């Protein structure tokens, strides 16, 4: 599984970013290879309109199977993600990325 997180930093100890469209970073963990990579999304955060769809597009290009986030995506982003086939887990607010991953594995997050 490739798992994407909305985050405020670039390592396992970074805090989760509760927002989807204006998340600062995506961290992507590839469970098969054990490699953790990141994508800088801060430019999208400055967009006046359409941050949700734009971020959904960036996420799609990172090719994850699963997204773990905080508040859950807004309407436009949600419909893009639905088409993309990425499974969305939300409720990982105020956690580090590591804690969010644990919460996902322990089935403690909500799913869309």
């Amino acid at each position: 599984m490739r798992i994407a997180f909305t985050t405020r930093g670039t390592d396992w100890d970074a805090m989760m970013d509760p927002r989807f469209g204006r998340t600062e970073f995506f961290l992507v963990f590839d469970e098969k290879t054990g490699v953790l990579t990141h994508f800088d999304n801060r430019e999208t955060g400055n967009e006046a309109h359409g941050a949700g769809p734009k971020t959904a597009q960036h996420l799609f290009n990172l090719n994850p199977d699963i997204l773990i986030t905080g508040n859950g995506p807004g309407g436009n982003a949600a419909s893009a993600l639905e088409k993309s086939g990425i499974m969305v887990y939300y409720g990982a607010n105020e956690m580090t990325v590591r804690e969010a991953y644990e919460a996902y594995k322990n089935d403690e997050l909500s799913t869309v």
Partner: protein
Amino acid sequence: MRIVIASGKGGTGKTTLAVNLAYLLAESRQVILADLDVEEPNAGLFIRGDQVLHEDRYKMIPQWKEDACTLCGICQGVCQFHAVIQLGTMIMVFPELCHSCHACSGLCPESALPMVPKKMGTLTHLRTGNLDFVEGRLDIGEEQAVPLIRQTKQYLDDHSPDGAIRLVDAPPGTTCPVIEATRDADFVILVTEPTPFGLHDLKLAVLTMREIRKSFGVVLNRYGTGNDDVLDYCREENIRVLARIPHDRKIAELYSAGKPVYQDVPEARRSLDEIVSWLDETWGKKAL
């Protein structure tokens, strides 16, 4: 003569002023009042008249033709609002984000994004005596107010009675909808209140009006509450204070019952008279 009633802060009394000014002027002249606060129009609550028109309004949005598309990506690159995005082999359109600029559609080499109409709201026209009333009302969930404001203004241009004074109840704030509602005004009345919030947002509205080069004056509503900072600011900035409408419980009671206030509140009547006579003097009886 086109007078737009705007404000920085919401809830300062734009609608109260617009409706009462409209009724007062309509006692002796032809008036058309338009509610261009299409996201939450409320002037209509005060108008009872015969319906001249009630119709759906549409904006044009692109519709993806999968068969014709070669996934070149030009469309998503040109959209400044991310209303068109490419997800793998799919083009997604977000109608609520679309500003109907036609760029994606016009630049598509395969004509795979033809523009199609989508309902965005309604337009209503009522008439009672000398007073015509036109309202644009955006559908719930629609994000773009400007296209409907533009259409409502076009309707006003096409259907205003000859020589009618146009009064516009504008949206609050200083963003695109306000610019669209004010850009062709002859004069803008900025309604504010004597509070720190009122002053803060008035300053933003003043900067906006200066940027788009509009003549404007201030009406201070709920006068007697708060402090004198708004008056001091207007004096320093050489801004004309057209009237001070006193804070009066009776005004709130009449407003909440959907009634005009000036017949029953002499101080409100005096404020309106001050505004009208200043407009008359400045813009000439003929224009008004």
